[in-house]
């Protein structure tokens, strides 16, 4: 339990990388990239967790009565989630154009740029 969350984050990142390298479809590639990014969420939030603590929201908790988990990593992850969605959208837009111009979304068939 002590390091399990970190190991899961590392595993998810590696699996995403494997998918990126072996993908046969560019849309699938973009999906794998978002898997890689999920690893960063897990890592950040695992780092900020605190045993027995509650969410850092004081609308129904008396301030100071209970420990709270680290709010900074949550703000960072929130930023990260939005960044991830926008990058996905932009890359998908590029994949659509690749599909139109090359007539394929298989990276093995893209032979224009080499050497």
């Amino acid at each position, binding site marked *: 339990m002590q390091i399990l969350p970190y190991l899961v984050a590392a595993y998810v*990142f590696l699996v995403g990388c494997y998918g*990126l390298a072996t993908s046969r479809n560019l849309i699938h590639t973009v999906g794998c*990239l978002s898997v*890689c990014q999920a690893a960063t969420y897990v890592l950040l939030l695992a780092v900020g967790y605190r045993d027995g603590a509650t969410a850092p929201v004081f609308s129904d908790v008396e301030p100071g009565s209970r420990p709270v988990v680290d709010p900074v990593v949550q703000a960072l992850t929130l930023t990260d989630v939005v960044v991830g969605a926008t990058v996905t959208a932009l*890359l998908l837009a590029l994949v659509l154009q690749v599909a139109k111009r*090359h007539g394929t979304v298989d990276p093995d068939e*893209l032979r224009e*740029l080499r050497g």
Partner: protein
Amino acid sequence: MHHLLPLLAALPLLGAALLVVTGRHLPRAAAETTGLVFSGGTAALALVLTLNSSPPMVEWVGGWLPVDGESVGIVVVGDGPALGMAALVSLLTVAALAYSWRYFAEPPPGHPGAFTALMLVFQGAMCGFALAGDLFNAFVFFELMSVVAYALTGYRIDEARAVQGALTFGVVNSLGAYAMLMGIGLLYARTGELAMTKIGRGLDTAAAGHGGPDGLVLASFVLVLTGLLVKAAAVPFHFWLPDAHAVAPTPVCMLLSGVMVELGVYGVWRVYGTVFAGPGGIPAADLTRALVTLGTVTAAVGAVMCWYQRHIKRLLAYSTVAHTGLFLVALGVLTPEGDDGIALYVVGHAGVKAALFACAGILLDRYGSVDEHELHGRARELPGVAVMFAVGAVGLAGLPPFGTALGKGVAEEAVGGPLTVVYVAASAITAGAVLRITARVFLGLGPRPRDARSDLETSGTGERPETSGPLRRIPDTMRTVPAVLLAAAFAVGVVPAFGGLVARSVNEAGSGGAHASVRWTAHGILLGLASTALAAALAALAVTRPRWVAAPGWAVPLRRLQSGHVGDYVAWLLMGVTVLGALALPGVLGG
């Protein structure tokens, strides 16, 4: 004064947002003028701040000044190198916007200001990254810079290569950025801080407890550096660069090659100096081993690949790879002279490289091709551009008194010994390739080269001009911009106070308080002349005896590696992480 620091990022963003708000109703000229005003205003602000950057400024955004040395806000650093990079970025953006004045044939319907707005966001992002003193904030601006760059690279959606290059760029750089974020997460876990100076101190305190750096420090170092080196296009993270830079619109290429790649190198300098330089970080010997090794390989691969290109923009892109290698080597030796040398080299290189891309853009718009073979002798009618191309080539070689020569000379002295050979060879080969282009395309010298091994190379034929049709007359803006850029690169070396100013501000910000003086030395001048002579000789040989310098058998596998396949590039990225880890490992084991 220091309250104005965040405005360097905010002003261009405001300009971009205003352009989108009003863009629909503005005529194109008004939109482009607005862009120039905002980008020029930011440049002026950056210059004023740079001149006032001694002693270095610090600003806590939101007014969260530290209480007892602790703050919850984000720190923005306004020292010489940060503001200098911001000024360089801004000036080059102004140049790129001026070059693209009335340039693109077809703004998207309903969005006449879209291209200008994206360029402004790009400028703001790069300024924000240069000034970042907080690691996560640096990541945010890094990502912003990347996202805009993907969109700008793929801007010409009618071009099959452009969209492919942009996609590769996007996937590889995003993966690098996520690796960097993992590294930031590890550092936060160890120290519980995000400001770079605080993280550095936190690492030192933690290391004092159990003696030296451990696996976590190594992993975070490697992961953060991976993100930055992907941006800086160090081998083996470099594959995306030629694919993206060769296909991006010309004004974008000027920014990508001129400053964005260099910002990766700058990021390595900033992060190592503030976070990992202490006793709890990575020992100096390991950083030197890692950066000098990667830098040398990068310079070699970049130079060799540059020589064998026929696609002119791709050739220039590889020369950027080679020069990044040189920057990394000088950075790796960790001396004040080395830092001063690359600072000057980066400034000079930005001017020269942007001017060369601008000239290549003129060829593209005039002939619809950037292929060395196809254009053989056709550009004889453009003597002005020919002169600029040749001047750019010798500037790249480091002919005194160009700014590149001053920076290269200082850096060569700093690295010393056998590494000097790398500098001379890499700059001579890349400059020789550019001179070869000049001789063949603009002068029509030598026999017309024959096409060979078309499965191995990307030709520059069949490109579509970026203007509404092939240009019959080259507009004045497109001629003036490269001339001004070359003049600026020249001035960097000639104006005597400039080198001293750069050296002082760089040393004040880092280098542990040591001050180095920067001046022309006989050694540097001789090596500069030697590189230029070697470049000229190579070009002459290529034109008169093409067989002697044709691709040897061992270059073929190297060229095959650049396969254009995004999966290959990702695999190489992982390999690079491993290599970087292995190179930095001994210090951690020893500690």
